[in-house]
């Protein structure tokens, strides 16, 4: 077998292993199903009335694309927790002592996490429809929007893989993850229009790639004006994956030593 065929086969073995684990860890489901639902309910019924979103009849239509983007980024926590667990229990040592492709552990991990992100996405769409969200774009655009969301989630899995490989524990990885995710997702166009923010924060929010992805998602799900956001969002995702996959595999090779 060629090196590439080995890499693909090893990645598939690791991805299968991680997929097998999902139904066996019901406590983990909370983070990618119930938690995002709580966010939707809080935002729609607690903050919704106080947030004005010019151009949208209902806050729900503005919120849902943004909150789904945030949920996809939260998918990274599943990646980080899984990898930290493997590190702590010595499984990464075992994998690193095997004659398998050096990228396969991480590639298999992040690939399997697309499955949990898909579950999250389905849950969010169902909850969105229940609280009054409407798709107002074409079915093709909606499918493209889902594709973009999953690609974005995949990018965040790689970012969190890198965080987990550099953190000393699962708790450390989660703390670091929150520091990355909260400012990035809240200081963006996900929950409120950036125009309502003070200068400085507004500039940050507009330059924030999360805003680019949120705006692109809005364009694809509720037919908001997109500009170049869809292509820019796609480029951001691909760029993040390229950078963090390279960094993570490099870190993995270089002895994730205790």
């Amino acid at each position: 077998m060629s090196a590439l065929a080995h890499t693909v086969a090893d990645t598939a073995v690791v991805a299968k292993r991680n997929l097998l684990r999902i139904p066996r860890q019901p406590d983990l489901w909370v983070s990618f199903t119930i938690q995002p639902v709580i966010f939707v309910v809080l935002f729609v019924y607690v903050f919704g009335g106080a947030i004005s979103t010019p151009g949208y009849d209902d806050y729900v239509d503005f919120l849902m694309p943004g909150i789904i983007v945030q949920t996809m980024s939260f998918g990274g926590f599943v990646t980080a927790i899984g990898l930290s667990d493997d590190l702590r229990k010595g499984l990464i040592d075992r994998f690193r002592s095997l004659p398998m492709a050096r990228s396969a552990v991480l590639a298999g991990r992040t690939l399997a996490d697309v499955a949990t992100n898909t579950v999250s996405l389905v849950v969010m769409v169902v909850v969105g429809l229940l609280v009054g969200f409407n798709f107002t774009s074409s079915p093709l655009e909606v499918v493209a929007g889902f594709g973009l969301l999953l690609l974005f989630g995949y990018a965040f899995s790689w970012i969190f893989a890198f965080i987990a490989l550099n953190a000393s524990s699962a708790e450390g990885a989660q703390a670091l993850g929150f520091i990355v995710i909260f400012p990035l997702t809240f200081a963006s166009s996900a929950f409120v229009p950036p125009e309502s923010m003070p200068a400085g924060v507004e500039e940050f929010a507009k330059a924030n790639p999360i805003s680019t992805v949120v705006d692109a998602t809005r364009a694809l799900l509720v037919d908001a004006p997109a500009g170049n956001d869809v292509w820019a969002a796609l480029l951001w995702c691909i760029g993040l994956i390229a950078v963090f996959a390279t960094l993570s595999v490099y870190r993995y090779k270089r002895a994730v030593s205790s």
Partner: protein
Amino acid sequence: MADAAIAVEGLRKRFGDVQALCGIDLSAPPGTILGLLGPNGAGKTTAVRILTTLLPPDGGTARVAGLDVVRDAAALRARIGLAGQYAAVDENLTGFENLDMVGRLYHLGRGPSRERAHELLERFSLTDAANRLAKTYSGGMRRRLDLAAALVARPPVLFLDEPTTGLDPRSRLQLWETIEARVAAGTTVLLTTQYLDEADRLADRIAVIDHGTVIAEGTPDELKSRVGGERLEVTLESYDQEQAAIEALAPLADERPKCDHGILVMPLDKSRGNIAEAVRQLDAASVRISDIALRRPTLDDVFISLTGRAAEEAEEEEAAA
């Protein structure tokens, strides 16, 4: 040296301010067990991590199965098995799924991987638990599964990093027997342990390691002979007879026997008499005893005589440092 399964020369590794390995030499011929004995923090695990390609050394050379651990790392990984200190099995997979996964990652192929997994489960008495998640396994079962995973590709060289730490005596004995069977079949084993009886029982040669340095090397018997020969230990029924016992046994030893708290200890000189002779002498002097035993020096004694402290004390030192 060229045909040694494990050949290590001047291996060095430093972590920040800590010199974990200060240039150690090790060697193991094929089909033997090399015991790496030392307290926690002595550098045993660092040595194993370097030899299994998990960690690059700072200096020195190490060849395993004829392959350099740095230059030929990729090829070497196909020829070694590693069972770690904490059993590195996936708790959320079944025993079968664990072994099948490892087989696939050794590139055995789908069919042979499954076959090998079943074969190993059978050999390690895990067939009944094959389809149960590993998190439901007992400590001994996990260690067996971990060892089975290390054996999936029939590696010629096996690394066992404290394989029996935390196991109950029965599971320990089972694991020892399994290791001995592998070696009988030609596998070379490097075993780290902080249990002196384990090294004594399993190892053909032992390297005693302390503060990253090999402080003694030899067969268990060679190491034990360093602290002298056999000793006779007599437990008296009554403290009153200490003096009588010393008088009775004095002719059997070069030096005068010592007696403390009703326990008499003396080196036994074979040319002067054996344990039967000692019993006769004590009986003739009407000394009543509750126990009499010939005690061979243990590796504990070796460790104390080499380092000036017991293995446990060394551990506490490391913990305090």
